[in-house]
């Protein structure tokens, strides 16, 4: 519950403040956001499964976002940044779908 509240606070803060993203961060932020979304859905699924652990959630959230950004950074250095960003988005997209499917089964038993 508190976690959801945090999400809401973040969204409202983003709407109220209009920050400019630092230039070096711009290619990585969207990827990190997608990775963090995956962590959130994964956490939600674990919570429904009754195996949710705050510690695991925090660690997976941070490491997902960091590694995703790192992969894209590495890709940019290697000259295949665009392709790697697409790859990361595809992988996390599939994971989000799988997690949401599990959550759906818990919620609607279908």
């Amino acid at each position: 519950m508190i976690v959801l509240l945090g999400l809401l606070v973040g969204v409202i803060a983003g709407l109220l403040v209009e920050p400019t993203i630092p230039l070096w961060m711009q290619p990585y932020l969207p990827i990190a956001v997608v990775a963090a979304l995956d962590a959130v859905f994964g956490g939600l699924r674990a919570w429904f499964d009754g195996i949710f652990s705050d510690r695991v959630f925090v660690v997976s959230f941070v490491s997902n976002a960091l590694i995703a950004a790192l992969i894209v950074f590495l890709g940019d250095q290697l000259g295949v940044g665009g392709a790697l960003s697409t790859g990361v988005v595809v992988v996390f997209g599939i994971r989000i779908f799988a997690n949401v499917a599990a959550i759906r089964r818990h919620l609607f038993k279908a």
Partner: protein
Amino acid sequence: MNKVVRAVLHPRVSRSKILAAILCAGLGFALVVQVRVHARGENLESARPSDLVLILDNVTEESHRLTDELRELEATRQRLTFGSDRSRAALEETTKLARTLGILAGTVPAQGPGIELSITDPGSRLTANALLNALQELRDAGAEVVQINDVRVVASTHFLDDGPGRIRIDDRPTSSPYVFIAIGDPATLASALQIPGGVFSNLRDAGASGDLEQRQMVRIDAVVPGPAVPRLPAAPQ
């Protein structure tokens, strides 16, 4: 479902829960910021170098073109405003404009490099459509002035089927051979007519044949019967 309701009604607070909440706040924040930045169209900053080069090229080209246009217009203005022979310059400019408009409207004859295309239709199977296609192809290839047989082609020219082998162009009956005279770059016009699946192959399909000649100088004498062109006054001495 019960689990959700319970969690909403009885939240349990612990330190790592709060940490998770803070992370989620960060996620929400980043999500909204990213969406807004993207919506503002500021993604130029995150575009990749190769895309940027392309965009830059386009912008540079555009700016060159505009600079040229600006210089031309400034020169014209200079002549009109500060020239010692101000009225003569104005008259010259107007005469030039009148001539350009006359050529566009088809009220004055014109000459220049161009092509002569003569279409013979022994089977009388060509329709108004075929002639219109040929004309549009010429226009697309940059033909500035076109005449078909003795009819000057202008914006309002129309083609009408009038029985086999007869086509009315601007209400004047014409028949094979149809002779197109067009002013424009001869090579461009010729290649436009000869592209595969283009005018020539369509003509062949209809059993007609086209004869193309590129010329350094063609004359177009046909004019549109229109209102009398007022004579421009002679330049004041």
